[in-house]
């Protein structure tokens, strides 16, 4: 594959926009309006920058920018390709929505330390875009760690005892695995290959023995614990103590997607499909992923806390993406990559809804929410759409990605996986649908829900309507994402 | 046997320096009293000075001060064999000075310690610290 590359500072700008807004946020701490205007502005600018790169990428060109050569042969280098673009597009567009939602949520609950909250939010977004645009493993690692530490204050925003223990768990898993597994794996790869730049065929081929490659592969797989592959998943439910917008953005979009993005990147860019195929490494990967899918879905069934339910659902859904990449068939990979976008929009809608319910009623548990559809019909409608998207039912975007996954598993002749996909979809339905049913059709037990319609503040509701709408639209117009995913797959597999 | 004896005698200075150094080292590590440790430290330093000065010794040579002093008649031939190697002496002058300086500082510190704990025995001081 001969890719055209152009050098442009745009990717760096996209990262720096949210980074540079941090001091302004700090300085404007006393004036909430200025602060939020700035956040919006930065989000808009960032989205526009990312958007402006889309046509270039769709033309089959890559954008490259080298920040500094930190180690001879390894530079801090940014490269925008189709896959990264896909991810960046999702996360930057969702930042705008989430910012709006955050403002509503934080003001609605009169949370403390809002300045700090917005600062770290911006920081986390920078890191996310950085991960998306990384050209090599080192840059990826840099932004990955930056994200870990930037999200810590967000996760522990409440500063109470629960937040403290969850924060510990979060850090232990995320940072512990990244230092314990990714760092040595990265360095071993470096000393084997002498480079860390992602290439479409990987750079590890032919440099080491099979067991070592296998070991490295699993170190990377588990090392990116943000992907929540079992057994390194339990930080995710714990981290749900964070304020909902944080959960929404970070645990539906940024953090976990960064994890799977990294896994996908490494599997394709470091090892390369051929190497994985030739060593049969994809088989254990997909089985681990399948296991995570099933187990996550089953645990989700038994959850009462809405956010925890969503968390386990996320664990399961993330493994779809890993599964898709692990199938190594073009369709499967397309499906996996599309699922990043589709799941993001669906899941963020669900989180927004959970947050809106919390803002409006203060409820957290499903059992307390029977009949809530009468009071918050818009929210619950959006919730319904979101859950359809997660299940993979037609009017929503999730259908497309699941469809591709199914096709991919057929293409890869993995019938077990097909079975897993179907069963898990059923399970998804089994944990979402009863809630939707109860919300709309059961008599409310709580007198609170008897009154007339009373939605959460507009700042909360509007975003979730938007994301729900996008979820639906994506079914009919998945073009940008689909094309990007296909381009990526084409560059990797040549098909 | 005679070899051994001649070796012992031929390097007597070195053996003694090692012995002194061991005495000093043992005192620094094992003595309990702070001032005793300082004494040991000084013995240790002198042992090393002894080593250096022993290097400089040269059989059949005289002290490293030229015999015919100042003035125009001074420029006659000087044979290196006739004079003891002066370089270690120079180094050891510096080392002695450093030793005195260290001694002064160490004693000052010991006085400070005594003012704080009213004893110079290390184990007693540690016991006092533990009590607090």
């Amino acid at each position: 594959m001969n890719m055209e590359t152009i050098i442009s500072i745009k990717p760096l700008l996209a990262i720096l926009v949210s980074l540079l807004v941090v001091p302004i946020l700090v300085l404007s701490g006393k004036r909430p309006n200025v602060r939020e205007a700035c956040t919006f502005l930065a989000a808009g600018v960032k989205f526009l920058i990312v958007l402006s790169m889309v046509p270039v990428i769709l033309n089959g060109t890559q954008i490259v920018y080298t920040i500094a050569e930190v180690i001879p042969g390894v530079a801090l280098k940014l490269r925008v390709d189709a896959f990264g673009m896909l991810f960046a597009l999702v996360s930057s567009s969702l930042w705008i929505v989430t910012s709006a939602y955050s403002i509503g949520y934080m003001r609605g609950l009169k949370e403390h330390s809002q300045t700090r909250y917005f600062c770290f939010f911006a920081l986390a977004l920078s890191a996310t875009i950085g991960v998306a645009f990384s050209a090599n493993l080192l840059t990826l690692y840099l932004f990955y760690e930056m994200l870990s530490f930037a999200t810590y204050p967000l996760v522990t925003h409440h500063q109470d005892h629960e937040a403290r223990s969850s924060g510990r768990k979060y850090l232990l898993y995320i940072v512990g695995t990244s230092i314990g597994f990714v760092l040595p794996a990265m360095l071993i790869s470096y000393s084997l290959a002498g480079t860390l730049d992602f290439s479409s065929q990987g750079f590890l081929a032919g440099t080491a023995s099979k067991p070592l490659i296998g070991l490295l592969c699993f170190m990377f797989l588990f090392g990116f614990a943000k992907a929540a592959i079992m057994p390194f998943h339990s930080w995710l439910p714990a981290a749900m103590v964070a304020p909902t917008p944080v959960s929404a953005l970070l645990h539906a979009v940024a953090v976990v997607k960064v994890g799977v993005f990294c896994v996908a990147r490494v599997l394709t860019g470091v090892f390369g499909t051929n190497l994985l195929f030739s060593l049969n490494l994809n088989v254990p990967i997909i089985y681990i992923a399948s296991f995570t899918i099933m187990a996550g879905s089953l645990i989700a069934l038994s959850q009462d806390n809405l956010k925890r339910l969503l968390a386990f659902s996320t664990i399961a859904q993330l493994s779809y993406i890993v599964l898709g990449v692990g199938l190594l068939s073009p369709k499967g990979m397309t499906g996996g990559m599309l699922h990043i976008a589709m799941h993001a929009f669906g899941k963020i809608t669900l989180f927004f809804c959970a947050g809106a319910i919390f803002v409006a009623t203060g409820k957290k548990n499903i059992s307390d929410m029977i009949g809530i559809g009468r009071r918050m019909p818009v929210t619950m409608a959006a919730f319904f759409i979101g859950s359809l998207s997660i299940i993979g039912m037609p009017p929503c975007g999730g259908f497309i990605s699941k469809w591709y996954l199914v096709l991919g598993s057929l293409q890869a002749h993995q019938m077990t996986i097909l079975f897993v996909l179907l069963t898990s979809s059923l399970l998804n339905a089994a944990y979402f649908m009863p809630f939707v049913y109860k919300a709309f059709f059961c008599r409310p037990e709580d007198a609170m829900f008897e009154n007339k319609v009373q939605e959460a503040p507009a700042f909360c509701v509007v975003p979730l309507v938007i994301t729900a709408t996008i979820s639906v639209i994506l079914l009919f117009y998945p073009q940008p994402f689909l094309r990007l995913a296909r381009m990526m797959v084409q560059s990797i597999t040549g098909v | 046997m005679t070899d051994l004896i001649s070796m012992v005698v031929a390097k007597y200075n070195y053996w003694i320096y090692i012995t002194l150094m061991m005495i000093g080292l043992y005192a620094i590590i094992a003595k309990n009293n702070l001032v005793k440790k300082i004494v040991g430290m000084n013995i240790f330093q002198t042992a090393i000075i002894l080593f250096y000065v022993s290097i400089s010794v040269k059989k059949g040579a005289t002290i490293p001060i030229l015999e015919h002093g100042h003035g125009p008649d001074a420029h006659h031939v000087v044979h290196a064999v006739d004079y003891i190697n002066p370089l270690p002496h120079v180094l050891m002058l510096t080392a002695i000075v450093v030793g005195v300086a260290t001694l002064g500082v160490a004693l000052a510190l010991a006085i400070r310690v005594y003012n704080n704990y009213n004893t110079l025995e290390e184990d007693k001081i540690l016991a006092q610290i533990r009590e607090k």
Partner: protein
Amino acid sequence: MDNIFLYSSLYLAFLMVLSLVRAVIGPTVLDRMIGVNAIGSKTVVLLIMIGFLYHRMDMFVDIALAYAMLNFLAVLAASRYFQKRKGLYDEALYR
């Protein structure tokens, strides 16, 4: 003549051993001081004798002179201790 000096100095070294014995066995600090003082006075003689053995008398006189002066200082300092700190407790009492 050199031999005479050599043996005399060996003999002086032997005398220093005797003085050192007093300095080592004590029993009081003052006895040690006497011993050390005696070693000092013998050292001065020995230094000059070494000067003769090296045939460089003029170089060693200075050392001997300095030595005599400072030996005096050390003994004086040690004895001054008792002017300010009364009571002669001794190592024997604190064994």
